[in-house]
């Protein structure tokens, strides 16, 4: 089949960063094309150029042989290009149908034709196989369902090219599966799909062809994905071999460090208890909505507790707020980077040292040399791609922002208990193994580490013990020697009989 979408020598620079240089490749009609690369490699930038959100410095885009000259997202819309960003663009207070018609409501003289409004939408949704009621408000849908609605919107607009930027990063595995089958149907209709992801499994499951970017340049282009191996792609991305991403080694565990007893709160009714030893990495696995993040927020004092105690090294902590917890040696790296993590408008340096700077600030006066040195150290250690530590964090790529937030807690002193919620969401393979290495080092120094993750391979890869949560309760506690994928998954699923209501249980 012929090439349908073609990028020709696209370059795009930002102050201090060449985000894309001379990128050229093309995608066949009806193909799902993967786009991979390290954090900051330029994937999102390429998508932004395609969507008309940013204009390229040089180069051109051709669709079906015709050169595109659009200068705004609207123009790209009309050319049939639709981008689904990670931050979804629906209006929560409108219904699904209203969202799908937004901007061009059917009807006469300003009066909306309700019949047509929902009628056409239900037909369209059924056609592409999306099981969502068009008359409910978007606010009541799960993230996965919202993503479906976004895709439906693209289909309704007769999109010829749909680009998805890390669509599965906040989906449960079930929701991801539904997304994949939807993508399969779109492919059969001849739509070109550009798919950005850090997850190799998904890439192999979905894509026909693949492009790897590295430092803004085209590192490799594979017109047929069946001719490449995982290891090959990884080394094309990071420029070196990574034998074993997890790198887990046996560690000696010390005495009990963190003890949580009967903790409960508004969103976690059943009391929860567990403990972690010095040097131990405890993994928390469960479906989205199982209550893992709520549990961690309660331990950290981010949300009000109804009851229960937390003790560190045998001493009960009376603290019930983040500043107190930090001083008692408990820290939490939150799950939602955008709302709970980054401080927009401030530099990488300030974002990284927001908590730890008090250690080098006698009388509250910051020592800028030490602050800079600390920031530079973790920028190097976590391989944050940036021209300078003074760069506004909002200008970093998604994965690099995540690394900065991790750096915030890895640079904190006196931490006894480190809890990390989804540590590697949106982070590339190379940096992942780097981060695991840091966690092992910290554990070896005696820290107790709690890792919450929705990625089973990750929890199984790095944890010494796994606790499985299901519907707000602890469903299983499994030591490393007994790790078994089936057993863990079975514990995470609510009730087998209720399996079909599962997708609703995952609503967050």
């Amino acid at each position, binding site marked *: 089949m012929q090439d349908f979408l073609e990028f020709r020598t696209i370059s795009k620079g*930002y*102050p201090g960063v060449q985000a894309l240089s001379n990128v050229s490749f093309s995608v066949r009609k009806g193909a799902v094309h993967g786009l991979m690369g390290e954090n900051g490699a330029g994937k999102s930038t390429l998508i932004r150029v395609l969507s008309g959100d940013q204009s390229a410095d040089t180069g051109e885009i051709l669709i079906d042989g015709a050169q595109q000259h659009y200068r705004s997202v609207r123009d790209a819309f009309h050319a049939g290009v639709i981008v689904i960003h990670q931050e979804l663009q629906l209006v929560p207070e409108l219904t699904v149908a209203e969202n799908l018609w937004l901007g061009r409501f059917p009807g006469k003289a300003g009066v909306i034709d309700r019949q047509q409004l929902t009628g056409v939408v239900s037909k369209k949704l059924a056609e592409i196989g999306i099981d969502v009621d068009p008359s409910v408000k978007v606010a009541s849908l799960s993230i996965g369902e919202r993503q479906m609605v976004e895709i439906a919107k693209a289909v309704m607009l007769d999109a010829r090219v749909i680009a998805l930027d890390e669509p599965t990063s906040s989906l449960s595995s079930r929701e991801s599966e539904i997304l994949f089958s939807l993508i399969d149907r779109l492919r059969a209709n001849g739509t070109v799909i550009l798919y950005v992801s850090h997850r190799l499994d998904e890439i192999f499951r979905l894509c026909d062809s693949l492009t790897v970017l590295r430092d803004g340049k085209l590192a490799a282009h594979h017109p047929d994905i069946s001719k490449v191996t995982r290891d090959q792609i990884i080394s094309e991305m990071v420029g070196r071999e990574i034998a074993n991403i997890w790198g887990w080694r046996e560690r000696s565990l010390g005495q009990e460090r963190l003890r949580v007893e009967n903790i409960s709160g508004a969103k976690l009714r059943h009391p929860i208890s567990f403990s972690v030893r010095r040097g131990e990495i405890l993994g928390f696995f469960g479906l989205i909505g199982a209550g893992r993040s709520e549990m961690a927020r309660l331990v*950290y004092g*981010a949300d009000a507790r109804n009851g229960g105690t937390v003790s560190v090294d045998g001493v009960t902590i009376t603290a019930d*707020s*983040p*500043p107190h*917890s*930090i001083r008692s040696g408990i820290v*939490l790296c*939150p799950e939602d980077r955008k*709302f*709970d*993590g*980054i*401080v*927009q*408008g*401030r530099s990488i340096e*300030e974002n990284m040292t*927001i*908590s730890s*700077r*008090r250690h080098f*600030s006698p009388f*509250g*006066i*910051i020592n*800028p040399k030490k602050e800079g040195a600390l920031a530079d150290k973790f920028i190097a250690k976590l391989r944050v791609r940036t021209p300078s530590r003074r760069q*506004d964090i*909002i*200008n970093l790529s998604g994965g690099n922002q995540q690394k900065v937030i991790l750096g*915030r807690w890895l640079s904190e002193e006196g931490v006894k208990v480190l809890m990390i919620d989804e540590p590697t969401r949106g982070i590339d393979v190379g940096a992942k193994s780097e981060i695991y290495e840091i966690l092992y080092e910290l554990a070896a120094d005696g820290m107790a580490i709690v890792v919450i993750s929705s990625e089973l391979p990750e929890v199984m890869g790095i944890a010494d013990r796994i606790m499985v949560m299901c519907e707000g309760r602890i469903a299983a506690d499994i030591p490393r020697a007994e790790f078994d994928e089936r057993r863990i998954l079975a514990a995470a699923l609510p009730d087998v009989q209720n399996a079909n209501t599962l997708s609703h249980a995952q609503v967050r």
Partner: protein
Amino acid sequence: MTSLKKLLLGEQGLVVIFALAFLVVSLTVPNFLTERNMLGLLQSVVTIGIVACTMMFCLASRDFDLSVGSTVAFSGMVAVMASNATGSILLGLVAALICGGLVGTVNGVVIARFRINALITTLATMQIVRGLALIASDGRAVGINDPSFYQLALSRFLGIPTPIWVMALFFVAFGFLLNRTVFGKNTLAIGGNPEASRLAGVDVARMRIWIFALQGLVCAVAGVLLASRITSGQPNAATGLELSVISACVLGGVSLAGGRAAMTGVIVGVLIMGIAENVMNLLNIQAFYQYVVRGLILLMAVLLDNLRSSAAGRRA
């Protein structure tokens, strides 16, 4: 981008524009660049300048304070009345600082602990405090008994009136506080993302109370200097001050959405406000037009800021 555009829209764009405007005005407006006029100009911005220091913190942390004008008038009144009553200027000053600090602390506690919107809270205290000033003085100006109270405003050091020194000192101190201390950085962090700051261990509620308390104290200082300059406590002094101060801050690039502020910007903002008024006075432009011009300057500043953000290509 052409280099001119780069210069105007860069970090120091406002300073460049200010320098150009200053040059043009100096060359075209008679009597502008004289020592007498310069000192007069600086004297006229002392109240705005001092209060802008803490308003900058308030705005940077995504808060808002409408009660500053009332607090300035009230604490000026208190200073005069207390020193008249006790015969001690020092006691008068202390009383004024206590009252100002109290108003600020009340603002802060209501806003941070009871989570009432800052705009509403300070709109309320603005009226309450103005009312208190009117009640205390029975609506009339209260004259100063001890002439040495005047000396606060009249005395000079190295030929420059004390209030100008005080303002300069405040600029330096608060510039340092903003850029070099944990307090300042935390203020900016709260403005950038309050929830993220809370989770990162910043005691957001306490910070906000401190910021408002400081604002009250600083208003008291401005109130005392103002009373001394106008030789009496006036219950209607400093009406509309809050708008001038917020304008000066916004002119100086402080973001109303929080998270962005710079002392140099605020200083320039204060000076632009002062120069505009001064020049219009020198040119005998009617006071009615001055409102229009001030509004236009503010609009232009905001537009400039907008252009600057989009030139910098911010994503958010």
